[in-house]
């Protein structure tokens, strides 16, 4: 969905199908996990990163923040980021919340405090990239 929207295909059929799919797989308590919200009858906890990526995609499609799935996901993510301790969770959380009217200054400040001396976050190119993306949106 992100790629198609970036390529100007926001109205593509697969994007619309993606929205339906994400809403279908949303966790009852808000947010998304790696796949189905239940595994053999047991609820699967939402994760920060999966929820962040889903919200980024839905924002690109233009879904309104008042849409119930989005609203509960934004609430879940804001609550989860407030408890987050790792660079990956903070970076993805702040990145995913961008554009949904949630203040992420505290998360970014916490993230900055976790930056390593070599400039990376968690010595990981993946986490460092997410951290930079989280900052980029705030600056733009």
């Amino acid at each position: 969905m992100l790629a198609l929207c970036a390529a100007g295909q926001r109205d593509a059929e697969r994007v619309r199908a993606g929205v339906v799919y994400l809403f279908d797989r949303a966790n009852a308590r808000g947010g998304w996990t790696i796949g189905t919200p239940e595994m053999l009858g047991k609820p699967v906890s939402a994760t920060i990163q999966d929820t962040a990526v889903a919200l980024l995609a839905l924002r690109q499609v233009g879904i309104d923040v008042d849409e119930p799935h989005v609203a509960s996901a934004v609430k879940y993510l804001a609550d989860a980021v407030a408890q987050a301790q790792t660079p990956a969770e903070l970076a993805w959380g702040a990145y995913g919340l961008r554009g949904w009217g949630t203040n992420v200054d505290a998360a970014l400040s916490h993230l900055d405090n976790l930056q390593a001396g070599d400039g990376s976050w968690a010595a990981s190119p993946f986490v460092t990239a997410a951290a930079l993306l989280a900052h980029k949106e705030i600056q733009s």
Partner: protein
Amino acid sequence: VKAERRGISRRAFLRLALLTGIGAGAGIIYKQTELVGFDNWFRWMTRGAAARLLDAPSQVALAACPDYDSDVSGALRGAWQAANVPDLNGARVVIKPNLVDYVGEYPSFTDPRVVQAVIRLVRKAGARPVVADGPTFRRDSEAILNATGYAAMLKQEETPFVDLNYDDLVTIPLQGGFTKLKSLFVSRTIREADLFISMPKLKTHHWSLISGSVKNLFGIVPGIKYGWPKNTLHIQGVPAFLAELAYSLPTRRCAVVDGIVGMEGDGPLYGAPVPSGVLVVGTDLLAVDATGARLMGFDPTQIDYLAFAAWAGVGAIESSRIELVGASIANLRRTYARPPQM
């Protein structure tokens, strides 16, 4: 008599009947093996038969260890020596616990105190250990390390953690032919290790009944390549893919099972604790898992992935082909509740 009346001799009739029987049997085998190919089936069958006939019994060591506050290192040391684990001097050792996820109070993961004991043991033997895993459900291993107590333990032991989901990738050939995949991307850390130690929790699993040292190999599959929860590989068939991983793992291997507190019922995540008070050590992962199954009160020959892999010659699961040393299995056996879905 009836055949003779029609002009066919008894001998000819018997020959005809024999040939018909052989032909029908071959036809049934061909049909039954069509999915995997007769050549694959024949190769696995003959390899398994040869292993059962020629291989020495697999040695599996048991150690009683009543709780995590007792002498875990001492118990482990005894079992380790009894299991004839290869020389470790100068070896790069990858210790792979089961960090499938952290879900509140459920004892779903290998306790860090057992991993700590292994780190100390291999380091004392002259090895260079790293701890590594690629969790199945979460993309952020650091959060799991923090929640499970691993981060503090690893810091104390000055031992690095490698996230197998994001490590540099290399390909290994899949030589067993158990799936349609010809090769697999794995972490460079795994490929370059001298010894791989699979450290599962003794627990139940809703797909494979138990989650042992072979199922724990799923954690070496890199999420960055195959996604989460690694369904690209689940859809190859769990027993087939597990047999392939166990067969094609490019590293010498052994297993240390944390059964001090096991988990029964709704595994791999939501089960209940069972104080089993046992550590299991061995170099044949199938034999270790079969012993684990018996410790939980299950018949390993009734567990699909074990039965299949043993039939194909990947390891031993029959009690006649496993030499148990150390503590008595009769004293350590418990009756674990099966997953409610099974």
